[in-house]
């Protein structure tokens, strides 16, 4: 188990380094002088600062040396400086990452729980009108653009019904403390988390349903039935447990999409996470910040993949930890 984790961590670090190297070349793809690009476009940079950057990243040196100093910077967690925001990129990101984790993990939990619930329900009553309704709803949510769903939710729950706040992380100026503050944040969290959650819920519903129907036909289920086990027990212990394996795999694959959904959702709801930060960087053409957020997103996906891999092995004891 330990050696497996160590192996995976090493692999992840290698992938991350490769992404950093790719970033290095991406900056050079942008039109213009890389130093000016890094400083931020549209005349926001002064010549002195550009010269400083040029020296810091040894842009006057040959390419391999430039690459080395760039990688060195990243390894020491120096993601560069955002000239636009007048702050180190790593500081900007670390201030925002908590909000993104809260949002994505809540959305992930909602989608997984509801998806498995509805998928199980649909499979249990396969062919009934309830099954058709769940399947159709899943199909529609699966095809709904997240940014549009977010706007429709605002329209319905904030503008029309007035139930939920339409943007932000907490009520500005309310100065809630303790439980009241937690409640306030939770209220702001509902819509963004549901927006991301519904798309993934649709995926997990479809997957769970298909997988349950598949497992139901297998021999060991017949055996369980022949033994005279109660239907509830068969469904829960035998069918669901085996049917969940592909769902867990899918969840791991989705980590990247989850982050992508966060970029969109945070933008619409002005949720102060790194997705929103990415959008701000985009608007200001702040490439250094943009690439910094991108590296951190990739790292998050790698960590998430590692966790789902471990969970997968816990759920399915047949898979050994040696790779």
């Amino acid at each position, binding site marked *: 188990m330990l050696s497996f984790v160590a192996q995976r961590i090493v692999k992840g670090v290698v992938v991350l380094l490769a992404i950093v190297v790719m970033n290095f070349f991406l900056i050079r793809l942008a039109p213009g002088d890389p130093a000016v690009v890094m400083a931020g476009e549209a005349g926001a940079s002064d010549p002195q600062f550009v010269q400083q950057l040029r020296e810091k990243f040894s842009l006057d040196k040959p390419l391999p040396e430039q690459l080395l100093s760039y990688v060195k910077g990243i390894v020491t967690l120096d993601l560069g400086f955002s000239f636009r925001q007048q702050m180190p990129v790593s500081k900007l990101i670390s201030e925002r990452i908590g909000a993104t984790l809260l949002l994505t993990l809540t959305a992930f939990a909602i989608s997984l729980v509801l998806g498995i619930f509805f998928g199980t329900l649909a499979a249990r009553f396969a062919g009934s009108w309830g099954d058709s309704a769940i399947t159709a709803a899943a199909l529609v949510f699966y095809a709904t*653009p997240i940014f549009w769903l977010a*706007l429709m939710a605002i329209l319905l729950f904030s503008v029309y019904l007035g139930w939920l706040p339409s943007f932000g992380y907490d009520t500005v100026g309310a100065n809630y403390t303790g439980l009241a503050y937690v409640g306030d944040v939770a209220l702001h969290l509902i819509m963004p988390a549901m927006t991301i959650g519904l798309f993934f819920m649709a995926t997990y519903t479809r997957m769970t349903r298909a997988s349950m129907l598949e497992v139901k036909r297998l021999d060991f289920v017949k055996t369980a039935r022949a033994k005279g086990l109660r239907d509830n027990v068969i469904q829960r212990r035998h069918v669901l447990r085996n049917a969940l394996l592909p769902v867990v795999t899918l969840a791991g694959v989705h980590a990247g999409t989850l982050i992508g959904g966060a970029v969109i959702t945070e933008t619409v709801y002005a949720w102060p996470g790194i997705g929103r930060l990415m959008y701000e960087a985009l608007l200001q053409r702040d490439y250094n910040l943009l690439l910094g957020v991108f590296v951190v997103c990739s790292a998050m996906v790698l960590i998430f993949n590692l966790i789902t891999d471990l969970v997968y092995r816990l759920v399915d004891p047949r898979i050994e930890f040696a790779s």
Partner: protein
Amino acid sequence: MKAFWKSMLRHPGGVIGLVILFITIFIAIFGPTIFPTSPWRMVQRPFLPPFTNPAVLLGTDALGRDVFAGIIYGARVSLLVGMVSTLVALIVGVPLGATAGYFGGRVDDALMRFTEFFQTIPSFPLAIVLVAILQPSIYSIVASIGIVSWPPVARLVRAEVLSLRTREYVQAAIVTGQSNSWIIWREILPNALSPVIVLASLMVATAILLESSLSFLGLGDPNMISWGYMVGAGRTVIRQAWWITVFPGVAILLAVLAMNLVGEGLNDALNPRLAKGSR
């Protein structure tokens, strides 16, 4: 072929999908000729509500531009980007997967590590970074979506080739001294076609969603109107004018839903073995 259409038409979702898809394709090709109002032109007062003026059926946006015209012209961008970027993904993924599966060993290892690397990178953020750096245009959008979506193609083709390679007719081709590229292109790939077609149709749906998300964030081609751009532009005035965001969103939803339905119908028709299963 007849059997194919028969089983495709037996799938009610597939039929609905095909109908919507054909309508969308028709609009994308002939819409601008039938409906010549430019989506950029001011035709009425700003914020005209929908269904009040038959000439401007879906109302106007903040600049008095016809929302209906935008939807007609936007179909072109969505379908074009969806199909061409899927084609790009196929052009990268099919040869790569085929080479990995056919030659195996170290070639396979190297190519699959490369594929896994691209699969780990979060695709939407990568697409954002690529379009932002290459500057938004229809070319950079197509290229970026293609670049982020080829890995599943490579993996699928590799798996298919791996299983087909051991078949007797392939062995026979090897014995008769056919070249490797002949065997891959003429003997193996035609037999791996149907799962690739299914995947490709579902990828078009994902590509349409990706394009609209990029346009929504302001990374669309500035010279072409698209549904995502329209939703993004209407976002700030959503409290006054819901129709500017609602209608283009419905258009995206329908187009993506249609592609997904067609993909599922194709799956049932082409892979009867997997008909009951998932994707």
